[in-house]
């Protein structure tokens, strides 16, 4: 791993489902001699493609979890992060995009730019990932790479420019013409491994010249020297074109388009050449970390091995030897025996075994350099954790973890499922800090909590698939809360005299709304009316009251309690008596303090083609949503809104069907807001019905 940083490429292969992304990756691994046989994605030969390491992926022929793999091409080391193509697994995609420096956008030459290509493209745009495009499946009937380039321009707003011309299409697809070198390339041998470079076929010569001119004209926008040479009609070399295009790619101003058919072993090697020539090395990409000592201010990281180490654990996997942690080193050198700090919890970690991954196989290495991707063994951490030199307190991701807003009961089918479910839950809560789990004391059910319906669905599905845990789920429940709206006094005496020692305690004071936090307790007792040793019992008693509000039994938040008077008895007062007195005082005042229900409001951002703008806004309106704004960006429109979570169940289906699958949305927790009176009544009615059912 002593290779120079400019010889490293961390790339992702992004595409929508079924555009042949995994097949392309498989061929890349074959040509870079990482694997020695080619397998089908759908697993007809019982092996399955190498990158799809999860069972579910092999069965469905799709990639869900992104495995990182390593290969070498033209003296460059390439780390490929296989990103999921399915829209429902965007958490994985976004996590992968955080560690990539460049990407290959794979498109189907028949299907062209489909809604999921739009999704993937938008994610790349969000993370400013430079990319090149590969138009795959040129051997299929109806293949039309020219149309795909047109769609890249129109639908995705890319400045797409062809770097190649196909030699024959559909069944006659034989090879490609390189417009920079003006040579034809054919792919001979059983697996297309023998490249034959020849003159351009006569019938394509004229078209190739026109296309080359278009390419040079575009490339000259990024290089003055090339522009001059073009205007003066001097000879233009391949290197000049590639160097200009590289500048364009790095600034995301141009998308060079390559083509071929991975399945038929055509066009993959030139694509590898292009990845090395056009995509950035880690030192050309700026990465930022958050300084935890300085209020999470963002700062740029260096790329040098000599800087103090900063690395991000971006994926965890359960292997046969324990937890495998995929890691990207941003600066510094991560070597065996190093001691680093996990900045999330401040724990020291000692680096043990380091490996470089090749899907399910691995190679032991001594160190991971800056800009590199590798994996660690025997480290207990969660996904998204940052490992940094003890001198630094940096984090690659924000430490802010929002509280879950939705919960779901899960019931294992049998004892075996119960054991597997526990394993799965343990793993998932490590992978994802927004996923939590606990056992409800009253119902004895296992509850999972998360940030949205889809979020929980994905985990339930993974539980079934990866951990073989057969579970059934209850209805999703929104995490409503109760709070008070006005100040109310209390003066409560708890008194019991039923044989044995009695119980006595009196607490007086008031409660009022508190906006800065969940609960605040103020002790203003003077003159020892409540002895000091019982004050903490009072606080405990009030806190017990917070667990269930008297209105609808939802947790209570946003309350300040002040106690300023009380009474005790020298014999009958005890911790228990004061806890009971405080609980009673809470109930007494709570009803007077006009309690209301608050519900989680989600920030929903929808990206849709402008022609569906009105329809999409209609769907928000029907869901008690507030549209904050609409932003038009070329053919797409971004609608920002706030919608109560309770109204968002099943929204992905509604959005897909009302926009022909062309819109996508993201949802995150925004705040809690008071539920309108009509909805409160509905909730109360529903609760009463449930109560009746329970009693029956």
């Amino acid at each position, binding site marked *: 791993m002593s290779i120079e940083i400019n010889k490293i490429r961390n790339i992702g292969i992004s595409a929508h489902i079924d555009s042949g992304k995994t097949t392309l990756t498989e061929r890349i691994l074959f040509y870079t001699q990482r694997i020695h046989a080619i397998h089908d994605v759908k697993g007809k030969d019982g092996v399955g493609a190498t990158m799809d390491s999860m069972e579910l992926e092999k069965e469905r022929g799709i990639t869900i979890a992104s495995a990182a793999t390593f290969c070498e091409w033209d003296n460059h080391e390439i780390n490929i992060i296989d990103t999921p193509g399915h829209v429902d697994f965007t958490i994985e995609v976004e996590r992968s995009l955080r560690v990539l420096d460049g990407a290959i956008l794979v498109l189907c030459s028949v299907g062209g730019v489909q809604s999921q290509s739009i999704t993937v493209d938008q994610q790349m745009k969000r993370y400013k990932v430079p990319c090149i495009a590969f138009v795959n499946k040129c051997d299929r009937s109806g293949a039309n790479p020219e149309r795909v380039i047109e769609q890249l321009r129109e639908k995705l707003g890319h400045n797409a420019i062809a770097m190649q011309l196909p030699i024959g299409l559909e069944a006659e697809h034989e090879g490609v013409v390189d417009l920079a070198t003006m040579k034809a390339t054919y792919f001979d041998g059983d697996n297309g491994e023998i490249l034959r470079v020849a003159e351009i076929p006569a019938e394509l010569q004229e078209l190739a010249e026109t296309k080359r001119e278009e390419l040079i004209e575009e490339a000259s926008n990024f290089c003055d020297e090339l522009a001059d040479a073009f205007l003066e009609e001097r000879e233009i070399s391949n290197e000049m074109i590639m160097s200009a295009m590289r500048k364009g790619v790095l600034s995301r101003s141009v998308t060079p388009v390559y083509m071929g058919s991975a399945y038929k072993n055509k066009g993959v090697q030139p694509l590898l050449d292009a990845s090395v020539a056009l995509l950035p090395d880690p030192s050309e990409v700026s990465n930022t970390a958050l300084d935890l000592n300085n209020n999470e201010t963002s700062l740029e990281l260096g790329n040098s091995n000599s800087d103090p180490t900063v690395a991000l654990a971006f994926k965890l996997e359960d292997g046969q030897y324990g937890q495998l942690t995929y890691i990207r080193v941003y600066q510094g050198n991560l070597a065996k025996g190093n001691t680093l700090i996990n900045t999330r919890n401040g724990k020291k970690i000692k680096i043990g075994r380091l490996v470089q991954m090749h899907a399910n196989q691995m190679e032991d290495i001594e160190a991971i350099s800056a800009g590199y991707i590798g994996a660690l063994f025997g480290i207990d951490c969660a996904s998204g954790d940052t490992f940094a030199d003890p001198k630094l307190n940096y984090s690659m991701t924000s430490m802010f973890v929002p509280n879950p807003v939705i919960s779901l009961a899960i019931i294992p089918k049998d004892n075996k499922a119960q054991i597997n479910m526990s394993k799965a839950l343990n793993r998932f809560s490590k992978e994802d800090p927004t996923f939590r789990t606990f056992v409800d004391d009253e119902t004895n059910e296992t509850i999972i909590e998360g940030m949205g319906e889809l979020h929980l669905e994905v985990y339930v599905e993974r539980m079934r698939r990866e951990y073989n845990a057969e579970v059934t789920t209850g209805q999703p429940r929104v995490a409503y809360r109760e709070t008070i709206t006005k100040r109310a006094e209390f003066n409560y005496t708890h008194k019991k005299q039923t044989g044995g020692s009695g119980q006595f305690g009196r607490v007086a004071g008031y409660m009022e709304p508190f906006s800065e936090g969940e609960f605040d307790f103020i002790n203003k007792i003077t003159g020892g009316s409540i002895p000091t040793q019982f004050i903490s019992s009072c606080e405990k008693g009030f806190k017990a009251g917070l667990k269930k509000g008297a209105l609808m039994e939802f947790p209570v938040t946003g309350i300040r309690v002040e106690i300023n008077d009380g009474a005790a008895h020298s014999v009958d007062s005890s911790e228990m008596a004061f806890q009971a007195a405080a609980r009673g005082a809470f109930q007494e005042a709570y009803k007077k303090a006009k309690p209301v229900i608050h519900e989680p409001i989600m920030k929903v951002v929808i990206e849709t083609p402008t022609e569906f*703008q009105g329809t999409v806004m209609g769907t928000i*309106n029907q869901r008690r949503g507030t*549209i904050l*704004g609409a932003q038009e960006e070329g053919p797409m429109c971004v609608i*920002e809104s706030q919608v109560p979570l309770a109204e968002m169940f099943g929204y992905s289906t509604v959005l897909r069907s009302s926009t022909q699958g062309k819109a996508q949305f993201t949802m995150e927790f925004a705040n809690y807001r008071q539920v309108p009176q009509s909805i409160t009544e509905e909730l109360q009615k529903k609760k009463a019905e449930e109560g009746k059912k329970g009693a029956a």
Partner: protein
Amino acid sequence: MLKKDLMMRNPLRAVSDENGYILPEGGLGAVVARAGVGKTALLVQLSLNSLLKGDNALHISLGDPVRKVSLWYKEVFNNIGVQYQVEKIDDLWNELLPQRFIMTFNIDGFSVPRLNERLTELADQNIFHPQMILIDGLPFNEEIKRTDLHALKELSEKFKSHIWFTVRSHRHEEPDSDGMPIQIGKFADLLDVVVKLEPEESNIKLNVLKGSGAISSQHLSLDPATMLIKE
């Protein structure tokens, strides 16, 4: 303090008619100033004024993203909260939020027919009916034609609303012979009110170049620290 109190203490009340409007129905108004003097801040306060009255306001920004426009509102509203000691400002803000709609376009992507199409769609679906439209960043010096302003006036009449624009002027430019900034000189007859923001020593004066009624005799300015309107 409730909405009503805030309305009563609003300096814009002094320049409005008995219904609280500065412009006549279907009217057009312009806020002219150099870059960074406070056009957007004034526009946002005109918008907040109508939100507090219970009217719906549509804020169109050419160039800035929704997030940035939202930030302007939040900033100005918080400053108002501090200045007038409003309790529970978040609750009041949540109450006003559904009345405000932000729409942003790239300058190239904006056209009056397009805006008309969007507004009609919103109105037809009963999603949003604006009583006040604010357009920030219309390029008055280059591409705007008289026909565009005529079309906007028609739009304003159709929705029974008022439209305010921001117009960016430049330090080196001399005004027209009638004192109008060069950018809007040729459109002055189509505008009902033209207000120019002029920085003075300790504040920013609102100089009314065109307008009748209460607005013509106002003595308002912007506080450069908070960008809030003061008497």
